[in-house]
């Protein structure tokens, strides 16, 4: 069920467009980092690639052989799909994916700062996108939950 009033409808569409944009940027970042992983090349990083290399080659860059960047591809694809999906299903799916992504991004950022002792700008950008997606999807999910 899509929101009915004109104002809400506008906001709903704007949030879907914003979520799609965030998902597309996230997909591009994940695709680049996945390519970097499989090609075995150093990622381009602001101020030298040392931090990105350390993170990308750390033992936390893969989960049972699956690169974290590929998991990011799946997550951002889910966000894009949720933005495309109309009605409550899309709103709740987007919120779920964004919340999982944001929580996992917080964990990955913790690893970068306190365990790997290196910062990868691409990963930080992806974390910021996930948090933005969470804020974006929270509005719709909260409205739906509060609706009578």
């Amino acid at each position, binding site marked *: 069920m899509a929101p009915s009033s004109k104002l809400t409808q506008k906001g709903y569409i704007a949030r879907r467009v914003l979520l799609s944009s965030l998902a597309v940027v996230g997909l591009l970042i994940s695709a680049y980092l996945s390519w970097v992983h499989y090609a*075995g090349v150093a990622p381009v990083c602001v101020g030298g690639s*040392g*931090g990105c*290399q*350390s993170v*990308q*080659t*750390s*033992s*936390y860059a*893969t*989960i*049972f*052989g699956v690169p*974290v960047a590929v*998991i990011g591809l799946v997550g951002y694809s889910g966000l894009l799909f949720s933005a495309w999906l109309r009605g409550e299903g899309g709103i*709740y799916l987007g*919120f*779920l994916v964004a*919340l*999982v992504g944001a*929580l*996992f991004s917080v*964990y990955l950022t913790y*690893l970068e700062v306190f365990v*790997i*002792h*290196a*910062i990868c700008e691409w990963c930080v950008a992806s974390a910021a996108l996930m948090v933005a997606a969470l804020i974006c999807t929270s509005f719709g*999910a*909260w409205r*739906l*939950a509060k609706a009578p």
Partner: protein
Amino acid sequence: MLLALIVGVAILVAALMAVLSQLGGTTGSSASSEDVGKLYSGIPENGTTLGKSGALVTIYLYEDFQCPYCGEFSRQMFPQVVEDYVRGGKAKLISEPLTFLGPDSVVASKAALAAAEQNRYWPYYSLLFENQGEENSGYVTTSFLEGLAKQTPGLDVSKWNAMRKGNSLESELYEAQAKAQSAGVDSTPTLIFSGPSGQQTIDELRDYEQITQAMDRVDGS
């Protein structure tokens, strides 16, 4: 109600991914003292040499402890090299630690060479790479090195500390540097395989297949 359920599921999924990440992070690598012990169990260690002295093939490893690709090699391929070629006596490994990335590389290499004096170089080598930080970020502190020394099975930490702080290890570093220059090594990791059928060099390591091929070419079989 539905929103609370979604939040609960999201927390559960994220937590599961974090746990898998921790497990996946240690799979196939020498993460803990116990894992390091298992990897080298039963394999002769003599200074910076790992394996039987009579092995037909010698693999020289030119690495910098701060080099991220050396860390990747050490964590992802090295344990398989040990299992496939060193444990059975086909090859022995000789580490040549290089220090071109910065002063912290010197400090880390000296710490590993100090462990070599007690024939505990290789467990310390694995722990250094397993816990590698960003190059020249200052992660190679005394407490970091001592923490690894305490995790190294069979290492007398006070003897290690005394050796590490002395100047006697610098000549070994110069020696490794000189060997690298004469062998034309200008990047890390570089692996040089020397056996009855000749010599093979890998200076752009991408996959394990390259190691298998190099071994096949030099082992004389």
